[in-house]
């Protein structure tokens, strides 16, 4: 009776399970199945984003040119695609760039729309792109800032520059496991605190490690209880 119940929801609702069930070893459970699903669905992903260079007939906006002049060496690459400008920034210079973009007269990017990341697991060296979507409420223009970071390395937190980045960076940490140095409160935000692994990584199975709750509920309960007690203390 219990067995039939267990197998059913795991197969039917892959999305619901990872949000609730914590497990010690995420990829160990179903990596083969997940990999198989991925292979038959799509060709292997490219090692990184194309980051197209701007075509000759589009001129680079002044704020990017000024940034390149003010902080030489900080901008690795400027990219343009479907109307969006992106600057790719050297990770150690990120904070300088952030301060410059917020305060410089021609930039005034005072509004941090979004902070997110993209995982390119096959890229040599730096695996993650951290993406900052910026907007200026006074000059009404947009810019995307990208920086590359290797697994295990940390990026300087921009929550001191834009307070809005606080939760957004927490989410990136939660979902990708990218650490933000100098973040005031780097905790998980969407997943439970005791969660193992970072779900948005490409090598994290879509089903998640959720079977633990179904296979050995006792173990899961123990884990939960130990955590609850720690919280009450």
């Amino acid at each position, binding site marked *: 009776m219990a067995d039939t119940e267990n197998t059913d929801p795991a197969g039917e609702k892959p999305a619901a399970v990872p*949000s609730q069930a914590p497990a010690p070893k995420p990829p160990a459970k179903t990596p083969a199945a997940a990999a198989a699903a991925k292979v038959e669905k799509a060709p292997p992903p490219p090692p990184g984003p194309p980051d197209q260079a701007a075509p000759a007939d589009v001129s680079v906006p002044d704020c990017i040119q000024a940034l390149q002049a003010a902080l030489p060496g900080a901008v690795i690459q400027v990219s343009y695609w479907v109307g969006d400008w992106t600057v790719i920034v050297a990770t150690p210079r990120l904070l300088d760039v952030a301060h410059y973009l917020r305060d410089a007269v021609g930039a005034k990017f005072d509004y941090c729309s979004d902070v*997110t990341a993209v995982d390119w697991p096959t890229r040599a060296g730096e695996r993650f792109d951290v993406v900052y979507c910026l907007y200026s409420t006074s000059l009404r223009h947009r810019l995307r800032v990208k920086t590359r970071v290797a697994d295990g390395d940390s990026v300087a937190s921009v929550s001191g520059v834009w307070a809005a980045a606080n939760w957004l960076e927490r989410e990136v940490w939660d979902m990708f496991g990218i650490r933000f140095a100098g973040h005031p409160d780097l905790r998980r935000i969407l997943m439970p605190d005791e969660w193992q692994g970072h779900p948005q990584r490409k090598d994290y199975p879509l089903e998640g490690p959720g079977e633990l709750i179904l296979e050995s509920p006792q173990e899961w309960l123990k884990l939960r209880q130990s955590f609850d007690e720690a919280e009450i203390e």
Partner: protein
Amino acid sequence: MEPDVARPMFDTDELVINMGPQHPATHGVLRVVLKLDGEKVVDADVVIGYLHRGVEKLSENRDWTQIVLLTDRLDYVASAAANLAYVETVEKLLSLEVPRRARYIRTILAELQRLASHLVWLGSHAMDIGAVTVFLYCLRERELILDLFEEYCGARLTYNSMRIGGLPQDLPPNWDKKVLQFCDIQLEKLVEYETLLTHNRIWLERTKGIGVISAADAIAVGLCGPPLRGSGVVRDVRKDEPYAAYAEMEFDVPVGTNGDTYDRYLVRLEEIRQSVRIIRQALGGLPEGPVMAKVPRLIKPPAGETYHANESPKGEIGYFIASDGKSTSPYRLRVRPPSFCNLQALPQLVRGHLVADVIALIGTIDIVLGEVDR
């Protein structure tokens, strides 16, 4: 008798109370851990994630067209707005030109959705402050909007009302007349809500000067939508980065002056009027033509990344999508959830206020947990 000096007579520690995740006024499964000194809030910690369904992860394993269904389930009070933002982002990646008629109808649907969402907001906000009747009045009008949506696309909550490249179908016959009729009803009934609230002394006392946030702070903390405008920042994606048919519409962007709960209330009420104005314009100038562009059967945008923002009823909803050019699903899809970003300001807003104001402030930032947790 000597009083016991070592043990104080009263325990004067701060009281920690857990508001939610099951609480009548947290609009879903939001948990706020409040530190109270008496009834005064000393600090608040917002705990979210109870409704996390992994929509972003799921999107990486779904077709581009299937994801429209997932966006329905983000902000389930305003799913057409989330649909619109998503399909527009994909169209941007595809560099696809959408027929003008489709853009007009999208505008109408988005504005109807804004009305529905604002009505739910007004109702639940008023109910949180104790005016239960307003809630039922608001839902009465929202019901009419749901009927309109039902007639258009068959669904009442999760519409799936947009397609990449256009719309699933043209307007049903006489639908436009019903919408115009509804617009008249809405403006008429708006007066009813205002009679109950706008000049009500208790309402004024409960909302004026509560949760004041300055324009600079609001920008820094990333507030968007009506809460940002309530602080006096003129920022509306519809005006600043026009999409759909908004470039051809005439409307005002209402802003507040004090950045308090009352101003945010007034801003939203004015937005209801402006939405009606936009709907009337769009219906008046509705062009003829197809509602769907030529779209390949299998959508595969070229490799590249983009971010595109819309003004949802809650604020700036944006999609950051990376396509690898080979697969039939996005390589990475990120939703910039307005509720999430607005909720971030909650601890800042509630500090120093009373428990009763926490409720008013959760109401005033208008969150939908489906979108916060995704």
